[in-house]
């Protein structure tokens, strides 16, 4: 199979996945027991006013009609208008998306940058002190709860030591280079928090796959041929061990977005996760539909990139 055909097939599968996600989101929201009119209106709203509000939202039409209208809108690139804010959904999302991308990408890079060396350290000292320490850290990391980690980090490094700001994405009234510095200082604690909760599973997977790889025949052969251990470890064993770890990164993206909802809430970070939370509380269907479409597209694209990376790491994937 040519590389182009490989990409086309992945794209086709991605589009189908997004359509499925969009449809399920559309239906699930309408199966919720709440009523968007009740969620935003004052308790003393009259029945007529409530019916008027539902008509304004387009929720008075039969479900199939709503679905056809929504899909028609989507095909024209229109995500609709927010129920509560009366502005285009795309505007609502684009205001917040860059911050979530910055936060999750930083956490992902940190996870990989810290996770690989820690996994290598543990695997290469299997059963010894460093291995045990990394395992303890890994298992502990898997059981961390974002809000607790966040508050502890804020309390220690924000309030007591004063090294980092308490919340937000940047300071008011700063411009130019100073603004980038401010963005960076606001990013540190939420990114560490999100990294800490991802790191455990990544390190443990890395360790396990590397230990497997180190037991393979070709490693024994390389050792018998007198190849230096460091070279065997980093050049041969690690490259093979990276395959499952790469898959894990693709899978973890979903969790990363879930973690971002909580991280953004605790650190008052203005990302899309918080936007989703607010839209859920207000039953703002168009914003939720748009946000989930965006997230589905992000995860699909990331998984496609993972597949492509996988293809480079292991030519057998392309061949199959």
């Amino acid at each position: 199979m040519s590389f182009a055909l490989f990409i086309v097939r992945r794209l086709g599968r991605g589009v189908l996945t997004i359509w499925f996600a969009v449809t399920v989101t559309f239906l699930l929201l309408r199966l919720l027991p709440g009523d968007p009119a009740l969620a935003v209106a004052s308790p003393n709203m009259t029945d007529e006013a409530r019916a008027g509000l539902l008509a304004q939202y387009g929720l008075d039409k039969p479900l199939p009609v709503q679905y056809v209208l929504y899909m028609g809108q989507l095909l024209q690139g229109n995500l609709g208008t927010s129920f509560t804010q009366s502005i285009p959904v795309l505007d609502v999302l684009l205001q917040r998306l860059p911050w979530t991308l910055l936060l999750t990408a930083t956490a992902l890079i940190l996870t990989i940058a810290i996770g690989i060396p820690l996994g290598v350290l543990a695997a290469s000292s299997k059963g010894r002190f460093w291995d045990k320490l990394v395992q303890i850290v890994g298992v502990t990391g898997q059981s961390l709860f974002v809000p607790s980690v966040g508050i502890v980090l804020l309390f220690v490094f924000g309030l007591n030591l004063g090294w980092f700001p308490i919340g937000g994405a940047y300071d008011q009234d700063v411009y130019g280079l100073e603004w980038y510095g401010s963005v960076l200082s606001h990013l540190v604690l939420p990114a560490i928090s999100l990294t800490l909760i991802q790191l455990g599973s990544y390190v443990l997977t890395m360790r396990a796959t590397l230990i497997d790889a180190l037991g393979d025949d070709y490693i024994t052969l390389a050792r018998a041929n007198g190849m230096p251990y460091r070279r065997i470890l980093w050049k041969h064993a690690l490259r093979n061990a990276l395959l499952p770890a790469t898959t894990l990164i693709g899978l973890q993206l979903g969790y990363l977005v879930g973690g971002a909802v909580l991280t953004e809430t605790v650190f008052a970070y203005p990302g899309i996760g918080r936007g989703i939370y607010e839209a859920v509380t207000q039953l703002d269907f168009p914003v939720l539909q748009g946000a989930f479409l965006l997230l589905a597209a992000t995860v699909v694209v990331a998984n496609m990139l993972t597949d492509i990376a996988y293809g480079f790491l292991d030519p057998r994937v392309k061949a199959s």
Partner: protein
Amino acid sequence: MLALAACAPQAPEDTGGGNPEAGSDTLTIATTTDVVNYNPLIGNSRSDYWITNLMYPHLLSIADDGSKEPALATKWGYVDDTTGFYEIRDDFTWSDGEPLTAEDVAYTMNAVKQDAPSGTFYGQMANFESAEAVSDTRVEVTLSKPDSSIIDEIGFWGNVVPKHVFEPAGSVAEFANDGAGGWVSAGPYLLTDVQVGQSYTMERVDDYPLVEGGTPIPAKVVYRVFPDVNTEILALQSGEVDVIANALPPAQVEQLRNTDGIEVAEVPGLGYAHMVYNMDNPDLAKLEVRQALSQAADYETIRDVVLQGQAVSTGSSPLMPVLSAYYDDSITEYEFDTDKARELMEKAGYTAGPDGMFPVTFRLLYSLQDSVTSQWVQLVKDSAAEAGIAIELQGLERNTYLAKTDEGDYDIYAGNFAIMDDPVTNFTLAYLPGGAINYTHVDDPELNDLIAQASVTNDTDEKVSIMREAAKIVHDKVYDNIMYTQNLYMAYSSDWDGFIVKPSELLSIVNPESVASAHKAE
């Protein structure tokens, strides 16, 4: 008889102390939510209310006892049974230079009535027909039928918006007012910069007649969003923010009172927490069963333990002590006595089984997002079990809770109202058949008559007397079980002073006069 009940104008409260000059300081206020809607006629969240209140004035404000006091309006009342009026100040100007006149007031009211936006304002307009600016400073309101509360209520709940901005935008129910061409303000501040999810920056409007000296003191007000209240408190302690706009959780009050550099202001609550027994349930339709339930809850323990002593009893009456003109201390709280509750159940015809439990189970609906209620319903369940009455708790996510409440799908409803400022309006909504918050589904002809009388009575003494009689019926027949009024506590930095606290969380420490009067402590 024509009832002429114009309210006497009162000067705004004296802030006390000196009169610090307008300076260059920025007051940073923390809130837990973003602004959802900049149109004050639609907006419902607290942040919407706090921020738009700094730009779009109300005709009336509220005093500590729940009575209305002047804001944009200087006089208000009734010309006759179906005509009300407001006299407004002549010194208010929109920030784009246009004067604020009675035309703006009349336009706002008529547009709200016509377009039915989802906010609280429209909900007060059932008996409103139209408004007319009869001069630059006088608006007359025509009612579809006599209503002795409406002038107070729409004056208090409704903001005034600029006709020259809102009218060209079409329906006020759909206008986002998102500042595409900049905002226009007649309040102390003008919104100039929005960083969604992060901050809202407002700059001083030099001419604001309701603040002493005529010019707001802080040059800027920045609202910063901290969705997690714990982070919000850390930000106050670290000095990143100066005030927290939302009320503190009861468990945090004592700790912050004892924290250096933090002051805690007490704000009278104007709402109440209550349990309502759904009379569509045949068991709960029996007075003895409702009485038994009312005697099977330990109100004092709930206030002491869950509310940490930060709540007051209303005497189980919907006329809370804070509404001092209406409060009737002869109505006393339901006694917590599980033996009496058992006797009442037996009197209602129920026999306890060998396990001491009566053959009834009531499903109690509450919102899981309401952390205080979520705690006390557990105590209610335990104490009811002592009286042999089984209560099954059904805590739900807020939107599902609202939907079930709307459908009447509960035996017992637990929840609270933030502001119940006008007894007649509240009784109309809560106890008349078809009332939007008549969660008991009560239809008592005697009570209905009293509420109808009060709603057309402009004589204050007579109205108070009628409402006390109605409250006694509600209490004695257990049409509602008011648990407490919660006092609210607001935290601010001791670097600041001069706030003018008003009742309720909506006004509290961040009402326009308070923000405009705040200054650095000496």
